[in-house]
Structures are given as C-alpha cells and as structure tokens.
C-alpha cells in the first residue's frame, strides 16, 4: 500500500464533546502536522477528512469523501469514530445524533447509520476516547439515549474486511500522544512496514494500556510506606481519597498529559478510571475511597502477591461494562421517557 493514499474519515458525531479531536491537536509525538504533511519516514500518503481542521466550509463538499467511501470508491480508509453511539432503535420518531443528511431525505443521518454504511468497507475502525470505545459518560445509568460504545454496537468480536479488530484508544479525553502514536502505528501497518497492531481483550494497544496507573505513579512510594493523604492538596498517595490507580489500566502518570507535563494522581488528581470499560458508574461516587482500598493499603507493607490477587478481582469488575449498554431495541438504563 506504500503508493496508495490512506484516507482517514473522522466522524465526531456520536454523543461526544469533540475532546478527542481537540486532543489530537495537542499531540507532539508525533504532531498532526507531521502526519498530515507526511514528514515521517515510511508514512503512506494520508488524507484527513476531519471536521475540526477541514479546509472546506462544510456541507456537501466536506461529506463527498464519506459518500464515496460508502460507494466503495475510497479504498483504503480508516474510519475514526468519536462519541458514544446513541441507541436510535429505541426511537419511534426523530434522532439523537446527526451528521449531514440522509440522502434522498431532508432528515439528519444518524451516527449509527454512518457506522452501518462505512464500517463494512473500512480497512480499520479506530474508536477514539472512552465514549466511542465503551460508552463512557453518556452511557451512565439513567441516561435517556441508551448510549453504548462501538464494541457493543458492532460486537466485541467484530473484524474489518481486512481482518483488523476494532482498535480502541480509551481516555476521557484521550491522552494526545497515545492517539497520534496509534494513528502512526496503523498507518505504518497500512504501508506494510509494521505487523498487526497488538491489542488486548478490550481492543487497547498493549504497549499503552498494559500497566496500571499505580505502577507508573511517582506517588506509589508513599503507598509503599503506608503514608496516605487525608486531604486533597497533600503531595502523598491519594488512594484513600478516591484514587483508583491500583486497578486502572492507563499510562498517564508515567507519560504526563502533554509534553510530559501534568497527569492525574502524580499531580494531585484522583484517578477516576476514565480509560476503563466500567467508567463512570463503577467508579462513582468518585471522591469515596475505592472498595478494597482499606484492605490493600493496610497490607501494602506485606508481601505484594496477595495484594495483586485482590486487585485482579477488582480489576476484572471495573474492566467490564455495566449491563445496560447494548444494541437491543430497548432502553434499560433506568430512565423513563416522556409519555
């Protein structure tokens, strides 16, 4: 594929805040201009169809590429989805989401209709941010839209026609370099330079999500000494104040947020589990001490193997989505719609 153009079709029209689009402008390893201008060795030619920085003014001119892709005239392309997928099947009229109009009608085309049209033709589907991957904040209990992630929508075992599983880069929002680095990997794979992207059971690149927050946190030394913060402005370990770092898969404390600056528990912010399939419900109320925290922090000076077993138990729970996120034509979130 070295000579072909890889199109990147980006639809941020799920239930989203566009925070993952904004995050990509923040990446510097690599930066978006380096990818767009092909300024990295081995990159295929890339063409972005990404609303946030698109040159055209929008409308038909912008959507042309998306319709071409639907007709099979834009091969290969990576479909990037951003935002949770509202369950449009629970509606008898109207729509929760829209991105342009449904051809032949004067009505919006929904996010899920776009996924139906484009996913089967895509070389790869890349879900950016926790909303798109697992449902995220808009799939919270009591939500009216029946929101879910792409894995719930297409199925956890779904593969593209080229055999790629759904690539998931969670985070709320996504850590900027985690995203640009994954895009770069996929482009290298498309160019035939890199082998199949290594993903874990929840579609996450293993080199980014293989360790816990706690394992990369520079406050873990306080934990080891049993020295815990009792107030939020303390420089010590925040685990008794609501930090879920020990069971959350994420590299942010180690990588920082941008240019190595910032992060979460390493700079005074409790980890609320925003990269996880169980986010947000399984971590709420966020400012309470996590269950099991009392025990594992009490025994932190004892041999770590036991701690690890206890943690794995909690981790398995928070690494699963709540059961109301699904693609069936019913709303089971607990919300009762207006009569």
């Amino acid at each position: 594929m070295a000579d072909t153009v890889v199109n990147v079709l980006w639809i941020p029209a799920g239930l989203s805040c566009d925070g993952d689009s904004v995050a990509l402008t923040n990446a510097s390893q690599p930066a978006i201009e380096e990818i767009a201008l092909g300024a990295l060795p081995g990159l295929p030619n890339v063409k972005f169809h990404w609303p946030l920085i698109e040159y055209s003014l929008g409308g038909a001119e912008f959507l042309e590429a998306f319709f071409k892709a639907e007709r099979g005239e834009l091969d290969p392309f990576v479909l990037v989805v951003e935002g949770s997928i509202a369950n449009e099947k629970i509606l008898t009229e109207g729509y929760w989401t829209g991105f342009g109009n449904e051809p032949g009608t004067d009505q919006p085309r929904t996010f899920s209709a776009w996924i139906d049209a484009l996913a089967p033709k895509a070389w790869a589907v890349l879900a950016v941010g926790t909303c798109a991957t697992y449902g995220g904040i808009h799939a919270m209990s009591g939500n009216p839209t029946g929101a879910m992630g792409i894995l719930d929508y297409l199925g956890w075992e779904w593969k593209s026609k080229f055999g790629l599983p759904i690539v998931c880069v969670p985070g709320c929002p996504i850590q900027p370099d985690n995203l640009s680095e994954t895009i770069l990997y996929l482009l290298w794979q498309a160019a035939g330079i890199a082998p199949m992207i290594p993903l874990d059971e929840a579609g996450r690149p293993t080199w980014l999500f293989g360790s816990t927050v706690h394992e990369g946190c520079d406050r873990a030394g306080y934990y080891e000494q049993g020295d815990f913060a009792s107030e939020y402005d303390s420089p010590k370990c925040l685990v008794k104040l609501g930090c879920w770092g020990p069971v959350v898969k994420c590299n942010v404390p180690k990588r920082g947020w941008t240019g190595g600056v910032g992060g979460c528990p390493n700079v005074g912010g409790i980890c609320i589990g925003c990269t996880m399939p169980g986010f947000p419900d399984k971590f709420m109320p966020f400012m309470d001490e996590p269950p099991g925290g009392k025990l594992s922090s009490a025994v932190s000076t004892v041999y770590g193997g036991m701690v690890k077993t206890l943690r794995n138990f909690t981790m398995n729970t928070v690494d699963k989505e709540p059961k109301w996120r699904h693609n069936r034509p019913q709303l089971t979130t607990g919300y009762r719609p207006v009569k």
Partner: protein
Amino acid sequence: MAVKDLPGAQATAGNKNLVEMSWDPITRIVGSLGIYTKIDFQQKIVAECHSTSSIFRGYSIFMKGKDPRDAHFITSRICGICGDNHCVCAIYAQNMAFGVRPPAMGEWIMNLGEAAEYMFDHNIFQENLVGVDFCEQMVRETNPSVWEKAKNKPSPNAHIHGYKTIADIMTSLNPFSGDFYRQALVISRYTREMFCLMEGKHVHPSTLYPGGTGTVATVQLFTDYYSRLMRYIEYMKVCVPLHDDLFDFFYEALPGYEKVGQRRILLGCWGAFQDPDHCDFTYKNMTHWGRKMFVTPGVVVDGKLVTNDLVQINLGIRILLGHSYYNDWENEETFMEKDPLGNPVDRRHPWNQTTLPTPKKRNFDGQYSWVMSPRWYDGKDHLALDTGGGALARMWSTALSGLVDIGYVKATGNSVIINLPKSVLSGPVTFEWKCPQWSNAIERDRARTYFQAYSAGAALFFLDKAFEELRGGRTRSWEPFTVPQDGFGCGFTEAVRGVLSHHVIIRDGKIANYHPYPPTPWNANPRDKYGTPGPYEDAVQNTPIFEENGPDSFKGIDIMRAVRSFDPCLPCGVHMYLGNGKTIETMHSPLAPFG
C-alpha cells in the same frame, strides 16, 4: 416545488433568485451545527437562516440522583475544548451548596489554569479554525479582487510582525503550509502545558475539587508556568498588531463589511476569575463578589451597561423551549419559589427546569433543533443575548463597568488597557481595546485576540498573588467540606466562547436537579415562542454577500465568517448544507429542508 410563504423573506417574495443553501455539518468548529439559509443573489443578501443542532446527550437527566461531589467531574465532559470551564463553574456551584471557601492559593491556581485555557483556546480557534476563512487560499477562491488589493496593501504594523503586505499575512494563515498557522499549533500546545501545570489534564481537569485544588503549590510549579507565559507574551506583542492589520483591511477593502454578522448590541457576560479576598461563595454576597471578579459580569444593550449585578443576572435567566425537541415542564415540580434573598424565582429559570426530551423529525416550520432558547428578561422583554463569541462581551462588559484595575489590565469606562512587560525581544507594550461601533463578525474576531492579551496580563497578576501566598507560607489550596442533605448552588463564569452558568438543587444528599447553560445554547438557539430568532440566525439573516462566486460555485464565506465569529461549540449545536445553487422554483432536490 413552489415558493412557500417564508417568514422573514417578504422583501424577496416572488423573487426568482431566492436560493436555498445549507451547510451541514459546518467544519472547523467544535461539535455538530447546521446552517440552513435562503439567499437572494440578486440583492446579494441572506434572506433567511435557520440554525440546527443535531445531538442530544442528556446531562440534566442522567445527573439526577448522583452524588453532588461528582458534578464537576461529570459536567466537564459536556465540552471537549472548554470542559475545564464547566468543571470550574460546577465547583463554584458546589462551593456555594457545600458552604466552603477555598484557600486563596486554590483560587489563584484555578485562575491561572483558566487563564491558560483562554490563551490556548482563543489562539487555536482564531488561527487554525477562523484564520483559514481569511487565508490566501480562501480569499483567492472567494474574492480574487480582494486578494489583488491585499498584494498591494502594505501592513501598517509590518515593522512589528514582519509581514510586509496584507497578502503576506493571509499566506501565513494557509492551513499547514502557512508559518503563522503552524506556529499557532505549537503555541496551542505549550499553553496547554501551562494549563496542565495547574489543572492536571486537558480538557477534563484531574486536580480540581470543590473546596480548592489538589495541585501542590511549589516554586517549581509557578516558575514553570511563568517561563511559558513570558514566551506567550512575546507572541502577543506580534499577534495583536497582526490581527488589527488583517481585520482593518477587510473594512477598507470591502466597504460595508461591518454588516457581515452584525446584529443589535445584545451582549451577556457572566464574569470570570474570582478574587479570593472577596469571594465567599455565599448567595447573599454574590452581588459584591461578582463585581470583584477580574472579568466583570454584565449585560450590555445598545452599547450601554444594563447591570453588573450577578443576582439580577441570575434571576433574569429564562429558558424558553422555542422550536426545540422538548416538552414543556409546566406540570413538573417547582424546586425553588424564592431565592435566599426573598426574590421570586421564575418557573422558567434553570433552578426550576425539568428537561423532557421528545425526539421528532426535523421540521423548520415546527421543531428543528436540540438547542433550547435561553433568554434574559429585563422586566419587559425576553432579550436574545449573545456572547459575542465570548471575548467581545467580556471586553465590553469589563470596559463599561470600569472596575478592573490590576496593573497589567485596567478598565477605563469605555476601553480596556493591557500592559505587557519587557520580554526577550521587545520592551514593554501597551494595547488599548476600545468599545467598537458594532457587534459584528470582525469585532467578535478582533476582541478574541485582545482577550488573549488580557488573559496573559491577568495571569501575570495571578502569579504575583500566588508567589505572595507561597512566600508567606500559605500553601494550602484545599479546604474540607461536608455535603448538606438539602441545598442549592449556582456558579457563574465565562466559558471561552461566552456565558456559562450551572444551577444545582440537592435533596437527601443527592442531585435533585442540575441545569448547565453553556454559551452555545445562548448563541445557536432556534426561534423562540415570540418568533425571535436565535443570535446565529439573526446575525446571518441580512448579512450581505460579498463573495464574488455566483450561485453555481458559491462557498458561503461571508455566512461562515459570521457564524464562526461566535466561536460555535456545539457539543451543545450548527450544520450547513449546500443546495447546489438552484433556484427554489426549479429545485426539486429532496434535500430541500423547507419544502
């Protein structure tokens, strides 16, 4: 298809050249917005405009019953470019509800984080999103004659920014290839580093809490911010004169350009940056501490200040449903009859709102948007205030009140003076922003650049105060609190693109009602029940068309400049669709949204 009777299009009734044009989705904004227009190509004017937001998420619904301490973590997720403004606004409301006053250090840290957000966000939006509408490629494609003029027009401030002609400025804004465009991307990153120093992660902060911050105040923290800020100040000294040159040129090259995006001066600003010496977060003192904010709240009508009293501003908010997809809440509960000062709270106030979504087909004669129509009631009229893209209202409100005087920034009563100190390449510089004649696209855009300089000046002041606390040994930045069984709160601040309020009611220790009102509902709303169009609709209607392309190759650049000047951010709503330039009589496009 026959021409229908179109409200607002009477002047052109029978005109064979009324053409439907729409842009859906609009690019280079945040979120999902559609703009549907009817354009009179003979008279070169937009005859009618509808603005539609096509996404519903339901925060007010799924927050019910949740722990009130979670509100700032949840509401930050409303917006992916100014989520931290929501986080901060929620914390202001939590502080009121929980009766907690953060230590001064906590407020200075939060103010520094928010100042960095304005510096980052206005910068990336102005240069990488709006700037493209003014870049060489766009101007050549839409107004070749303007490009010719720009090539021969020396930049008045060339000695400061180095771009000899206006055309050179336009070239520097070309996407990716333009050097100013690329520089802005890099600046948007180190300003986000400044942000992350204070608030942990962008755009959903990790280190902010009710009661203050988890950010640990150290010499390193503030020095790291300082060094980056001084680089930004260096950049501001170039950025402001560059944009003055560019925007002044448009008035000169296209006489009448002041009418693009112009509407009556109806501006709202809810104030930003608390002063910890005065702000105790009590409702009863809100009038006082609101006036001590370092951006002064205010309602500005026809260039005059109506009020700068946050209590009055709060009580005047009315949520009308307009042509949106919601049922009315008249049969639902009233949560607050009177405020703690004894003032009646209206049924249509956010404290008393219940959100009842009813998805419908889109119908521009009926319901056509997921955005409701907030209005501000002055005792007589439901005013369709806009935010001027944020910066214009902030500058105007602050200027007229004349209350801010912090050395680096001073409000005079009709202008704002910004004093920036010596930096590596240049000596001290003073800018003065004067209240303009118009509320229009160019002035919204110009104010954005000036407010970047304002934020940098304010940040210098906040750093001085933070160092004062640090050197005095007062490093605590968080204060403990308890959550009451029953309570209420309201927070007011400025999201980057304008007014932001959060209203919460707590019962049995849980959220009983929560309604955030970000800037976009104020700007992007549909016609209300009185038939008053929302600000985008109002500003686009009657916008003259200066673009040189006819209907067949029409891009709609003047309309897009009008819309983008508001800094649309529609994770809360606008879409435009291009109707291929056929007249309504002959147009049989099934896409026609008005048929």
